[in-house]
């Protein structure tokens, strides 16, 4: 893990560690239920012991931010995995199979890109009702095309590599070649792209919540930003603090991923194996 030596990588990792700690120990750090109407509404930050103040119904913004971390991390990671699953499989199959299957899968990828994300989101959410699972599905449906395109490009580059041809000659099955030879070599850039998609997933979730398409029973940062939007002038803290938390966690994920992929490209160019 040499990329830790780079300052940005280190900061990124520390940030992610804090985020995970926040998410895992949310109910210890903030035992109060974030939805509980405990105090006077619209208390300014630090007033009456509420470090981030309270929102229009008197709910503790700090508890919201802490519990929000849990939702964002869970949705971020889960939808990145789902995106990866769809994207990588589509990319590998299209890249390796070639011919009409490749054309068909590429057309589908293009189609998913042309359809505006919002239409896709509303169709799925109004069909199945907004809850954690459907939101993860929606985010995955919106963000898998770029991953598929990357996976396809990597596979096509590796397909004609000599060790792949040797494997074919030795009678290895397509599946064994895909999983044994192609996937391990295509993994590093894909891992970098997928970790980036964790950050975008968190942003997309907050955008959906902002537009009112989020899950009403979960306290997420996007929901808090959206709910505080109309009271920006009197109660800026309702929107500001979840926004800052959202931005910091996305920033840290990007820092860590950036350091990892820089280190990766450096290692590859040094070895000059490509």
């Amino acid at each position: 893990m040499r990329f830790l030596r780079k300052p940005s990588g280190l900061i990124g990792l520390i940030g992610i560690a804090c985020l995970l700690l926040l998410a895992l120990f949310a109910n210890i750090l903030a035992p109060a239920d974030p939805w509980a109407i405990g105090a006077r509404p619209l208390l300014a930050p630090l007033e009456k012991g509420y470090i981030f103040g309270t929102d229009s119904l008197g709910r503790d913004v700090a508890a919201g931010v802490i519990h929000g971390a849990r939702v964002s991390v869970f949705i971020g990671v889960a939808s990145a995995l789902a995106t990866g699953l769809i994207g990588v499989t589509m990319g590998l199959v299209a890249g390796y199979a070639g011919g009409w299957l490749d054309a068909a899968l590429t057309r589908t990828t293009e189609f998913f890109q042309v359809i505006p994300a919002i239409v896709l989101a509303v169709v799925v959410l109004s069909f199945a009702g907004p809850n954690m699972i459907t939101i993860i599905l929606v985010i995955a449906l919106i963000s898998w095309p770029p991953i598929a395109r990357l996976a396809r490009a990597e596979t096509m580059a590796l397909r004609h590599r000599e060790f792949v041809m040797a494997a074919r000659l030795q009678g290895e099955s397509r599946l064994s070649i895909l999983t044994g030879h192609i996937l391990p070599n295509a993994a590093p850039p894909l891992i970098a792209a997928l970790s980036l998609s964790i950050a975008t997933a968190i942003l997309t979730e907050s955008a959906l919540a902002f537009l009112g398409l989020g899950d009403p029973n979960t306290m997420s940062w996007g929901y808090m930003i959206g709910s505080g939007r109309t009271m920006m002038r009197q109660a800026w803290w309702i929107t500001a603090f979840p926004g800052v938390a959202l931005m910091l966690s996305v920033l840290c994920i990007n820092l860590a991923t950036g350091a990892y992929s820089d280190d990766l490209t450096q290692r590859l160019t040094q070895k000059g194996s490509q």
Partner: protein
Amino acid sequence: MDRRSFNKLLVGALGASAFPLSWIASPASASGERVINTIVNPEPATLMIGLNQQAPTGLVASKIYQGLVRYDFDLNPMPCLASDWSVSADGLEYTFTIRDDVLWHDGTPMTVHDVIFTATEFLPQTNPRSRLILGKCASITASENNTVTFRLAAPFGPFLLAFDASTFPVLPAHLYEGTDFRSNPNNDTPIGTGPFKLAEWVRGSHIHLVRNEDYYIDDKPYVSDIYYRIIPDAASRALALENGTVQLGQASDVEPMDFGRLAALPNLTRIDRGYEFSAPILWLEINNRVEHLSDRRMRQAIMHAMDRNFIVDNIFFGIGSAATGPINTRTKYYSENKRVYDFDLVAANQLLDNMGLTAGADGIRTRFDLIVPPFGEVFARLSEYTRQALRQIGIDVNLVTTDVAGFASALSNWDYQLTFNYTFQYGDPALGVARTYITDNIVQGVLFSNTAGYSNPDVDARFAAAESTIDETERTHLYEQVQQLLAEDVPLGWLVEMEFPALQANSLEDVITTATGLNGDFENARVIG
């Protein structure tokens, strides 16, 4: 193609997109001193008030079209297109004398024939509310010296409350007779008798009304131009009111939070008149068909568990008052004399214990789904408050969000357990309240009907009796009994008497002079700034 030409391409692309065609014509406008800038949200679909009863259309078109009468703040009729009217002793004949000096905006004189055409052909086809009321007439006939007589089949108490510009807009027969109303080209260029005419409508931006020079009252209207600006975002509307780009707005234009702050500003005043005609009540819609919710004690427990004052203060920010029963204090025949449910958790838990609903290990007695109405932040906060409030008496509420179409179909097809709803009361219980509680208005697939599925013969009988008499004392007595019966059964959780105060810049005067408030025709409005 080296870097220089790439930049040229870039600048070219930017330049070209900066001068799109439809943008350049910015409207000229008359001198600023007699102009009113106000807000309409969302953008109306059409201004032809006969075809569309949606709020934005009513707000703008009520300056272009007029009814036979208008109502003062106490809902007493005042002359408009009808200069005088009389009611026969048996309450069956209403005769209106129509003014003979009125011109349509296109110069054609307005005649009795227009009123007959509107009442017999146009409105029954396009306006469900008018259809219901006009349907009670045996005959509608014109007689000599410019009068029109509506002959009722049976006496109908609030008949006179049905002739304002929204329920009974008089429409130009010479433009619509014998045509397919919906696809008539005149719909894009509305022609009415009102004090203002449509000058220009730039979609997505603004609607510009200009003074009707040949208005039948010579010196009126005093204002030269009205600009209805289309601002989709609540925060932006609040800012427009604050920095004076807009001089007139209503409570529903901004979030309740902002309204209090704006009303306190020196350049704006809060007008608490003008919504007596609509005066809606917001209630917790309870599907009486659902298990446990069908039991009156559960509904009473819910009423005890909801702190209505907290809701008015922290969700409506003071714009409204705690509701006590089905009829709004501003609507006729409101009565104090009925059971009222104060905020009392002990009583609520007691009722639930009597029902035998014991709480499980996690303190939960039962679970309900609540559909969050997709109409802005107020309903979101209200749903969240309800979940916490009912949680305190062991009822776990799961919020379900949906969009307008989902909400409409869930409500009208009875596919819900809890949600929120409100309807306008139109000044008289017979017009706006009865439809929510009478058994024969339980119609699946129709909004604003008895969607809760409440049925009580005693209530039905009293509503019917009160409707078919014009004897004020008898109507008051009957409606008092209805309110007592409903207060016992609590078919719906009445929460807030909604208020729609207006926000008016100090530079304006006499803008709101009727019970329909901003939906009046601004005939007397004046800019003194």
